[in-house]
C-alpha cells in the first residue's frame, strides 16, 4: 500500500457500503419498533399481571441481560428451524434482535414508571381509579414521553448489536465491509468508511437523545409558563 488513501477505491465501494448502512438502519429501526411493542406488552404484564406472569417477565429480562447477544442470535439461527419455523437470515436476525431489544425495553418502561413518583398512583387511587385505569390513563401516558430519550439510546445499541448479524450472513454494514476487505485485500480504506458510517448514524442518535432529554416534547411541564 502506498502512502495516502486510495480515494478512487473509496468512492468505488461507497455505494455498496451505503447499501449495507441502509440495511443496518432498516433492521435496527424495525427492531426498535417491534421491541418497543414487546416492551409495552410485557411491561404492562409486569405491572398488572398475576405474580407468576410478573416473575416470568422478570426471568425473560434477566436472561436477555445475562446472555451475550451473539448467543441469542446463534440460538435463533439454529433453534428456530428445529421448532419448525424456517425463516431467512434477515427475519431470523430481526427476531433475535427484537428479543434482545424487548428485554431492555421492559426495563426502560419500568424505570420511566418508577420515576413518576408515588404521588401519581396515590392521587389516582384517591380519585377512585382502578389499578388498570391508574396504569393506562395516568402512569402510561406520562411515562411514554419519558421513554423517548432512552429508546433513542436503545436504537443506537441495536444498531451496534445488528453488526453481529454478520455472523449469520445478513449483508448489513459490518458484513459488507468485511467482505470488501477479503475481496480487495484493502484494509484501511474500508475500515475507515465503515467506522465513519457507524459514527455518523450513532452520533446523530446521540445528539437526538440529548436533545430529547431537555425538549418540550418529553418534559412539557418544564416549559409551562405562568401565563
Amino acid at each position: 500500500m502506498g502512502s495516502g488513501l486510495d480515494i478512487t477505491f473509496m468512492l468505488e465501494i461507497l455505494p455498496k457500503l451505503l447499501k449495507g448502512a441502509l440495511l443496518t438502519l432498516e433492521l435496527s429501526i424495525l427492531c426498535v419498533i417491534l421491541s418497543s411493542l414487546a416492551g409495552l406488552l410485557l411491561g404492562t404484564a409486569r405491572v398488572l399481571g398475576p405474580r407468576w406472569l410478573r416473575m416470568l417477565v422478570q426471568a425473560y429480562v434477566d436472561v436477555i441481560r445475562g446472555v451475550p447477544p451473539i448467543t441469542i442470535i446463534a440460538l435463533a439461527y439454529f433453534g428456530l428451524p428445529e421448532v419448525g419455523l424456517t425463516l431467512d437470515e434477515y427475519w431470523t436476525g430481526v427476531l433475535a434482535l427484537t428479543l434482545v431489544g424487548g428485554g431492555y425495553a421492559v426495563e426502560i418502561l419500568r424505570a420511566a414508571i418508577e420515576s413518576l413518583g408515588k404521588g401519581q398512583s396515590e392521587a389516582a387511587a384517591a380519585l377512585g381509579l382502578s389499578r388498570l385505569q391508574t396504569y393506562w390513563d395516568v402512569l402510561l401516558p406520562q411515562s411514554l414521553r419519558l421513554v423517548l430519550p432512552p429508546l433513542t439510546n436503545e436504537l443506537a445499541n441495536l444498531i451496534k448489536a445488528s453488526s453481529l448479524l454478520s455472523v449469520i450472513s445478513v449483508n448489513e454494514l459490518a458484513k459488507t465491509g468485511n467482505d470488501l476487505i477479503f475481496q480487495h485485500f484493502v484494509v484501511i480504506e474500508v475500515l475507515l468508511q465503515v467506522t465513519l458510517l457507524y459514527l455518523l448514524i450513532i452520533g446523530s442518535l446521540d445528539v437526538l437523545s440529548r436533545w430529547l432529554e431537555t425538549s418540550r416534547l418529553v418534559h412539557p411541564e418544564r416549559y409551562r409558563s405562568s401565563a
Partner: protein
Amino acid sequence: MLSALPRLLPALWLTIEISLIALALALAIGINLGTLQSYLRPGHPVRRLLRVYVFFVRGTPVLVQIFGAFFLLPVLGIELSPFWVGVIALTFNSAGYQIEIARAAIDSIDKGQREGGLALGLEAWQVQWLIMLPQALRRMIPPLTNELSQVVKASSVLSVISVFELHKASNAIASTSFKYIEVLTLQAALYFIVIHGLSLLSRHLENRLPGGPKLASAVR
C-alpha cells in the same frame, strides 16, 4: 447435553481470563485518563482528544473495533496471537467506558474536598490524584462490576477472530456433534451464571457503598 460441559468449562475459563485481563488493563488506562479529563479545563486539547476517543468507542460496534484490531495491528507491523489481539480490542473498548465511569465518580465528589486540599497548600494535581481519586474509587466499584459483565458479553464477539472462548468453543462442539440447541443452551446458561452473578454482586455493592444506586445508573 451435560456431556459437553467438561469441554466448555476450559472455554469459559478463557472467557473469564480474557475479560479479567482486559478489564484490569482498561482500569489502569480508564481511571487515569478519566481523572485527567476531570482535571483539565474545558476546551483543553487533551480533554477534547479524550472525548473523541470516548465518542469513537461508544459510536462503533465492538465487532468493528475487533476487526479493526485484527486487521490494523499487522498493518502496523504488530503480529500477535488472536488471544492478545482480543485483549487489545477489549481493552480499547472498555477503557472508553471506564473513562466515563471514573470521570462521573470524581465529578460526584463534594467540591469541598478539592477546596480543602487546595487550602492545605497541595498542588492541583495532588488534590486530584491523592484526594479526589481515592474517594471516587469506592464509588466506581458498582459500575465497574457492571462493566466487567459488559466485557464478558463483548468477549463473545472475539469468536469472529477465532479466539476459542466460550462462544467459539461451543460453536465448534455444536458443529461436530450437530447438537446445536443443547450446546447453545448450555453456553447461554454458563454466560448467564457469570453475568447475572456479576449483576447481583453489583446491586449488592450499590447498596453497601457510598454514592448509591443513583451514581451507578448515571454512568451507564
